[in-house]
């Protein structure tokens, strides 16, 4: 099982996710520079968090047009697993690998805190080590995480089982106060139609070490290891 982490100018969670991948998968990921036109042959591509190109135009908009993204799209089309975290999720929606868009948070401010998520499916390569409807605690840190899609798209992704995670309260209930950014249907993470691409605003790599106060992010990496080995 070999993973790659894409590094854009302005990525800043590339090292964090590389640490989690190396620790849990027992093998360091390849760090792939944005200007490389060709992705090496890997089983998993991670598009990390940060502020690619400063996010000055629109979060993820510039990165979605970088040379490496063309190669990531080709790999995704062939079934290579792709995980986009935070800015990575924004990039995947901008690149059209995932539907919808991530708008400015409802509160208009950057928010960094732990949130609770409900795991909607435990049968994908990203979540098989979780239980269905398990409530997990994972941090968010973003200004643009307010998921938006038109009603038809929302219906379609719900029907297809593409919703990966929803923001819930500690007990697992939907509650508008537990939705930190105003996302439509409290969507925190989303699959593509084949559940081979996952984008999510929360950072599983930030709670994957007991010294940092929690390990609810670990099963995601373990799931991928198990599925792709």
């Amino acid at each position, binding site marked *: 099982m070999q993973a790659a982490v894409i590094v854009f*100018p302005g990525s800043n969670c590339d090292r964090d996710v590389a640490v989690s991948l190396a620790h849990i998968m027992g093998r360091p990921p390849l760090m792939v520079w944005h200007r490389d036109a060709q992705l090496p042959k890997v089983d998993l591509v991670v598009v990390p*968090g940060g*502020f690619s190109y400063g*996010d000055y135009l629109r979060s993820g908009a510039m990165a979605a047009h970088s040379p490496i993204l063309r190669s990531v799209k080709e790999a995704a089309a062939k079934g290579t697993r792709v995980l986009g975290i935070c800015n990575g999720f924004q990039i995947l929606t901008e690149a059209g690998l995932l539907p919808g868009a991530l708008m400015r948070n409802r509160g208009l401010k950057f928010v*960094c805190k732990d949130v609770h998520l409900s795991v909607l499916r435990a049968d994908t390569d990203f979540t098989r080590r979780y239980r269905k409807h398990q409530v997990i605690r994972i941090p968010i840190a973003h*200004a643009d995480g307010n998921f938006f899609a038109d009603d038809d798209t929302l219906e379609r992704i719900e029907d297809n089982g593409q919703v990966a995670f929803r923001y819930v309260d500690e007990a697992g209930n939907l509650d508008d106060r537990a939705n930190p950014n105003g996302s439509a249907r409290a969507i925190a993470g989303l699959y593509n139609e084949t559940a081979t691409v996952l984008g999510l605003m929360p*950072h599983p790599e930030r709670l994957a070490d007991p010294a*940092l*106060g929690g390990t609810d992010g670990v099963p995601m990496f373990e799931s991928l290891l198990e599925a792709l080995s």
Partner: protein
Amino acid sequence: MSEAITPEIVKSHGLSEAEYARVIEIMGRQPNRTELGIFSVMWSEHCSYKSSKKWLKTLPTTAPWVICGPGENAGVIDIGQGLACIFKMESHNHPSFIEPYQGAATGVGGILRDVFTMGARPIANLNALRFGAPDHPKTRHLVAGVVAGIGGYGNCVGVPTVGGECNFHPAYNGNILVNAMTVGLAPADRIFYSAAAGVGNPVVYVGSKTGRDGIHGATMASAEFSADAEEKRPTVQVGDPFTEKLLIEACLELMATDAIVAIQDMGAAGLTSSSFEMASKGGLGIEMDLDRVPMRETGMTAYEIMLSESQERMLMVLKPGREDVARAVFEKWELDFAIVGHLTASGRMVLKRHGQVVADLPIDPLAKASPEYDRPWVMPKKAQPLDPLEVPALPALKALRTLLATPDLCSKRWIWEQYDHMVMGDTVARPGGDAAVVRLHGSNRALALTCDVTPRYCQADPYEGGKQAVAEAWRNLSAVGAKPMAVTDNLNFGNPEKPEIMGQIVEAIRGMGEACKALDFPVVSGNVSLYNETNGKAILPTPAIGAVGLLEDLERRAGIAFESAGLSILLVGETKGWLGASLYLREVVGREEGAPPPVDLALEKKNGEFVRKMIAANRIAACHDVADGGLLVAVAEMAMAGGIGATLLPSREVLLHAWAFGEDQGRYLIAASKANARAILTEADRANVKVETIGETGGDVLALSGGQAVSLIDLVAIHESWLPNFMAAPDRNA
């Protein structure tokens, strides 16, 4: 170039008549405008420390673990295992008042550069903020802008903002304080300094292009505000955190090679102060062709190029023949790279523009012989101690509820949730405790970090206040179990030309120095911000202290939360019930008077070392220093953090309100199992440290034995709601 320099032009450059006479003497002729501009920024208070230098020299700056004290871009200490910690705190007060978002953002950018210039990867940011009265019409706008600016910059750069402090007081209505601190790590044998070396070596400019922003920012920061402060908005720079992130990565990448001889960031006074400092420290001259400076705008004059404070720029001296290696790194990161000049043996700064020499100045007289003043000062009138009997006793738990919802004591979650405090994956103790704890990447060791000062104490008695600021920082580090290592200071005061303000500076530095000496806590870097006055009204004296401590083992540390019921609550230190200058007096009674609590440095040291020893012995379940608001507030904070209540047994010797809210110094609260509590008491007896049992954890209320109780949920709601409600309230000006 032959333009006459009139007294008006001299005055508009902030130079006194005597200083201008010095200029003529040094130059041996009348300077041209570019040269005058250079003198003006180099001799500004901001760059020259001319009013404070005499007193700063009295601070202790050495210890076996200090690698580099004040004088470089930041202080450097040895933290063992081949690692150095590089840190500094710096103010961006004036720009933040005029343009809060960009002012605060560029403050963060500047302090980050000070640290990575020396070869360190920044691993944490902190900030100390002071705003005016909550009901002042500008306060909310300033809070919102400053917090968003700090977050906007730090979050994008990807360095966690892990701690800080925030107070409100009407004395800051016209001059807010934004003090930013960065902490970085470098290999102890790979520290980069700014002294130029090697005649003929290339002088290289990297980073962003130079524009017309921020011209005379350093001079602005060295004068009082008048009512027209807003007109100075164009002197505030604009930050580009994305470029800063690239600059960090590019510099660190180049630093891993052997190409760099010396490096200096372009901060206040931009290209002028960076080039003069590098040349002066190396005893060399520089010849620069300003045509080669990457420029954002056309038609810039030499004056504008030299005085621009455009952000995200660095100046380096490279080894000969390494230009291409360096160029490749900066091109990879898509940053400007230009060889703008070379070192000479002349000891002079020679600047060319359009093929002509536009300035020719001696370096040392500007950089080293800047004016140093022994400004007249008077001993500040010190407030008299206040007898607790003269302070009305209000019901304790009702007063507690009031205090927890005051601007100074309320939860600052609204602020720190806007900061990414977890990026880099090593934030072990997040904001909200005594000190932030940041792990040394890939190890089991950590740094503890804090910022402290109590301006109301400094106002009442600058000497005791200066001592207390250092002691509280030392205490906050001790309370998490860390060995306090060193401090950086950020001295914020009013106009030093007024003897009573100068007296505050002198006395505060004396207090700080005594505390640093007694606690073995050297000052390794710092910054001075004077002229924090508007229309003649000065801020409270605010010598902010940023401090770093070392935790050798993450398993042996303490947090503030009560995590289980049935623990004994112990109080370390002497409680006399000191209510002078307390928050109880100000916020509950409505009086600002009395001397601040004195700090007994010997006792401080003994108590702190005892607490650290108990934490290292794993005898402590939770620990919190007793500070603002006193004992009851500290217990409430521990209870709220863990969601476990407590029952306390008030003292019989001290009046209840004085016991509950007195701010006697040198105290800690400890929660420990019954068995550990017994052992701690025995050890304390042996060490001659005063420790008493004052209660027990448990339940969902905070209760005073014998009746009164308040629900924890209620306290949390009160504590958490003040700041978000304040920020969300409808706009009064609308």
